[in-house]
C-alpha cells in the first residue's frame, strides 16, 4: 500500500498486544448474529452487575440493611439508578442464562466434545440463582426476611438445620454480613467458572450450524478455521456493540419501571423495582410475602408438595436431567427432531416453569386441588407427546433454503412472547398458558429448526465474494451510514440533557433512562459500523 505508514490506533494496539494472535476462535462470517452470541449477552449483563454491585457495596451497611438500602435510593446521588439497574441487570442475566442454555440444549450443543462446557454452564446457572437469592435477601425488607425464613425452613426441613447459621448468619437479629458476604463470594465464583466456560468454548470453537456439520462432533477443522475472521478487530467490535446494547436495555427498562404505576398486583414481583416495607414497620403485617419471580415456580410447588425433602427432590429432578443429558443423549444427531425425547423434555421444562411462575404470581400460597394440578400439567404433556412424533425433520437442506431472514427466529419468538404476555394479562390461567406455551415452542422448533443460515453459501474465499458487488447491499450500507450520523447527533443532545438531571429524587431516574438510551445508541452505531465495514 502506498499509505502504509499512516498511523492507525488499531494497528498500534495490535502490534503491541498481539491481538490478532489471541488464542480465540476465529469466527466465520455467518456467526455474527445474536443467537450465536447469547453467551456474550449473559457476560455483558454480568459485567454490569459487577460494576454496579461494587459501587453499591461502598454504600451498603450489613448491620443496617434496610435503612442503608433506602438511603441508597434516596440519599446517594443517582443511587436509585444504580440499585434499580442492579436488580434488573440480575433479572436480565437470569433470563439470558436460561435462553443461552435452552438454545444450546435444543441444538444439542452439549454433545461431544462440549460436555464439560455444558456442565460448567449448569454450575453457572446454579451460581447465578444463588447469587440472585442472596442479592434479593440483602435488601433487608419484609420480603427478603421472609425469603431467608423460607430458605432456613427448607434447610431445617431436609435435616440440615445446623447449616442455617453457616448459610444465612444471624439475619433475624438484623446482621446481614453473611448475606452480603456470600452474595459477593458467589459472584466471584461466577467469574471464575465463567472464565473456564469461556476459554473452553473458545478452544473448541463455537458450534457450527447443522448445515455445515450435521452430526456430532460439530467442530471446525483447523485448516478451515484459518479462513475465518480473527478475534481482533471484528469480534471485538461486534462484542462491544452487544455489551452496550445489553447495558442500554437494562438501564432503560429498570429506570422506566420507576415511573410505572397502576398495574395488577400479581405483576408486582416483575415490575416493581422498589423494596417492600421494613420487616419491623407496621406496614409489614399487611404484606403477603412472595419470593423473587425467578423462584416463584419453586414457591408454587410448595403449595402442593408439603414436605420439604420431597420438594427439594422434585426441584432437583430437572437439574439432574440437565447434568446427565450429555451422557444419556449419546447419538451423533444434532437435529432437535431426531432427538425427540430430549426436545420434548426441554419443551416441557420451559412450559412448566413458565406455568408455575405465573401460577405462583396469580395465586400465591393457595393450595391447589388435584384437579387443578392435573389441568395445569397434563395438557402440555399430552400435546408434546402426541404432536412431536408426527413432526418430521426435513432432510434435504437445499429444499429448506428459502429466504427466511436471519432474525426470523427471534422475531417469531418475540411476537409469540408478546402474544403470550397479553393472553396471560387477559385470562390469567396457568392451564391456558401451558397449552399456548407448549404449542408455541413446538411450532417454533418444527418451523425453524431446519432453517439454514442465509449466508451459509458464502463460505468461499474473500476474492470470490469480492467479484460480486451487491447493489442493494451498497444501498443498505449507505442507509446505515446515515443512521450512524443521526445517532451521533442524538447522542450529543442526550449527553447534554444528562447534565441537567437532578442526582436525587423523583426525576433522578431520567438519568438512568438517558444513560440507557445513549448506551443503546452507542451499541447500535458500533453494530452499524460493523455492518458497513464487514458485511459482504
Amino acid at each position: 500500500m502506498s499509505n502504509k505508514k499512516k498511523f492507525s490506533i488499531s494497528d498500534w494496539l495490535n502490534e503491541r498486544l498481539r491481538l490478532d494472535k489471541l488464542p480465540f476462535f476465529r469466527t466465520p462470517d455467518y456467526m455474527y448474529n445474536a443467537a450465536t452470541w447469547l453467551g456474550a449477552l449473559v457476560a455483558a449483563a454480568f459485567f454490569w452487575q459487577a460494576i454496579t454491585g461494587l459501587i453499591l457495596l461502598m454504600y451498603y451497611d450489613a448491620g443496617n440493611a434496610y435503612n442503608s438500602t433506602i438511603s441508597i435510593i434516596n440519599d446517594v446521588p443517582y443511587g436509585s439508578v444504580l440499585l434499580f439497574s442492579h436488580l434488573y441487570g440480575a433479572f436480565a442475566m437470569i433470563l439470558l442464562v436460561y435462553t443461552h442454555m435452552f438454545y444450546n440444549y435444543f441444538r444439542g450443543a452439549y454433545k461431544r466434545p462440549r460436555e464439560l462446557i455444558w456442565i460448567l454452564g449448569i454450575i453457572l446457572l446454579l451460581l447465578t440463582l444463588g447469587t440472585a437469592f442472596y442479592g434479593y435477601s440483602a435488601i433487608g425488607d419484609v420480603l427478603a426476611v421472609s425469603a431467608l425464613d423460607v430458605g432456613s425452613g427448607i434447610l431445617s426441613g431436609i435435616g440440615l438445620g445446623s447449616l442455617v447459621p453457616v448459610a444465612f448468619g444471624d439475619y433475624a437479629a438484623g446482621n446481614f454480613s453473611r448475606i452480603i458476604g456470600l452474595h459477593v463470594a458467589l459472584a466471584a465464583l461466577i467469574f471464575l467458572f465463567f472464565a473456564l466456560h469461556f476459554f473452553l468454548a473458545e478452544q473448541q470453537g463455537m458450534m457450527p450450524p447443522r448445515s455445515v456439520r450435521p452430526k456430532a462432533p460439530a467442530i471446525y477443522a483447523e485448516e478451515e478455521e484459518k479462513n475465518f475472521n480473527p478475534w481482533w478487530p471484528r469480534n471485538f467490535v461486534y462484542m462491544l456493540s452487544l455489551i452496550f446494547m445489553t447495558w442500554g436495555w437494562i438501564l432503560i427498562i429498570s429506570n422506566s419501571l420507576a415511573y410505572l404505576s397502576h398495574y395488577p398486583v400479581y405483576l408486582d414481583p416483575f415490575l416493581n423495582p422498589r423494596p417492600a416495607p421494613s420487616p419491623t414497620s407496621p406496614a409489614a403485617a399487611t404484606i403477603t410475602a412472595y419470593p423473587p419471580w425467578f423462584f416463584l415456580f419453586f414457591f408454587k410447588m410448595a403449595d402442593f408438595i408439603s414436605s420439604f425433602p420431597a420438594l427439594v427432590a422434585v426441584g432437583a429432578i430437572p437439574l439432574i436431567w440437565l447434568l446427565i443429558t450429555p451422557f444419556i443423549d449419546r447419538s451423533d444427531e444434532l437435529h432437535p427432531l431426531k432427538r425427540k425425547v430430549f426436545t420434548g423434555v426441554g419443551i416441557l421444562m420451559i412450559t412448566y416453569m413458565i406455568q408455575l411462575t405465573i401460577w405462583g404470581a396469580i395465586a400465591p400460597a393457595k393450595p391447589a386441588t388435584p384437579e387443578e394440578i392435573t389441568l395445569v400439567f397434563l395438557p402440555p404433556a399430552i400435546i408434546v407427546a402426541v404432536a412431536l412424533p408426527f413432526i418430521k425433520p426435513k432432510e434435504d437442506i437445499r429444499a429448506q433454503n428459502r429466504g427466511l431472514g436471519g432474525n426470523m427466529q427471534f422475531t417469531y419468538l418475540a411476537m409469540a412472547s408478546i402474544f403470550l404476555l397479553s393472553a396471560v394479562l387477559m385470562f390469567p390461567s396457568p392451564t391456558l398458558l401451558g397449552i399456548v406455551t407448549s404449542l408455541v415452542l413446538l411450532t417454533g422448533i418444527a418451523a425453524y429448526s431446519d432453517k439454514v443460515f442465509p449466508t451459509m453459501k458464502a463460505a468461499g474465499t474473500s476474492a470470490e465474494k469480492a467479484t460480486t458487488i451487491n447493489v442493494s447491499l451498497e444501498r443498505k450500507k449507505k442507509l446505515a451510514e446515515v443512521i450512524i450520523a443521526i445517532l451521533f447527533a442524538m447522542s450529543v443532545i442526550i449527553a447534554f440533557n444528562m447534565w441537567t438531571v437532578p442526582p436525587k429524587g423523583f426525576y433522578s431516574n431520567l438519568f438512568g433512562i438517558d444513560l440507557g438510551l445513549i448506551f443503546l445508541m452507542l451499541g447500535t452505531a458500533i453494530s452499524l459500523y460493523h455492518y458497513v465495514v464487514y458485511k459482504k
Partner: protein
Amino acid sequence: MKEYKKIRILGTSDLYFVYKLLKVMRNPKTKFDGKEFAKKGEDYLFNYVDKNLGGVDESRRNFLKGLVFGVAAATVIGIIPGLRVLVPPVQSVTGFPKTILLTASGTPLKASQIPVNSPITMVFEYPLSGEPNFLINLGDASGKPVEIPPTTVTIPQTGKTYQFPGGVGPNKSIVAYSAVCQHLGCTPPYIHFYPPQYTTPSQVTAAEPNELSAAALIAARSAHIPAVIHCDCHGSTYDPYHGASVLTGPTVRPLPAVILEWDSSNDYLYALGAVGVATYPEGSNGVPSQDPREDLDESQFGSPVGTSSKISEINTFGSS
C-alpha cells in the same frame, strides 16, 4: 459448498465491479502495486480487492470510525455527572432544626410527666441520628424538682467559657446534655446519670456500667450536689446541675448542652440547638470547636432527625 454454486455468465454487476476496480487501480492514493503483485501473487490481489473494493474504502471507513468515536465521546460526557454516584452523601443540616420530643410510642412528651431523678436513662437523638442526648428532670436528694439556674461553664482544656441557659419546664428543672462522653466518646449505657439514691459509697463496688469511682463521689460531695453524670469507661464525671461541667477527669471538656424550649400551653418540649463544645472534636489535636454548628457539616453519616425525635429508655440499674 462448491456443488451448490451456480454457473453465471457475466452480468451487469460484474461490469460495474470491473469499472470500479479499474478506477481504484488508477487512483494514486490506492495505486495497484505491480511489483508486490509479482512477488506475492494471488494473496496480494485478493487483499487489494478486499481492502479497496470488497469492503469499504479507507477514508469512508475513517469517517464512520470518527462518528462512532463521536457517539462514544458523547457517552463519556454524559456519564461525567453520573460520577457523583461515587461521592458519599454527607448528612448535614444547615441549621439546628426545631425538634419536638416524643415518647417511645410516638406521642408528644409532656414535660410534667418526666420522673424526677429517674434511674432509667432517657435518651433522644438530635440533631442527627446516632447522636444521643440525655434528658434529665433534676431534683434534690429528697426527690423534689430543683430549679437549674443559668451558669457560666468553663472548658478546662482551653480555659474558655460559655453560658449554659439553665433548666426548662414547669419547675425549670429539665436539662438535656450530649450523651457522648467528651473523653473518648463512650455512649450509654457506659455513661449515664446517677440519681441521688445511687450517688452513694455502695456504688463504688457496683458492677459495670454502674460503678462510681471514689474520686467522683468525693467531687460530688465537695461540690454539694446530690447526683452526677458519670462515665464508667474511664471515670469522667460531670455536674448536671451546672451545665455538665467537669467534676473529675480524665475528660477535659464539659458535655455540650442541648437548648430546650418548653411550651407551657401544652407542656411539650422542643430541642432548638446546642451550646458548648462541638460533640466531635475536630482535628488530630483534639481541641474542640467552640461552635456546636461544626457538628452539622461533620460527616457522621447519620441522617437528620427532622422535626421530631423519640425518647428511648435505657435501664442500667435494673428493677432494684
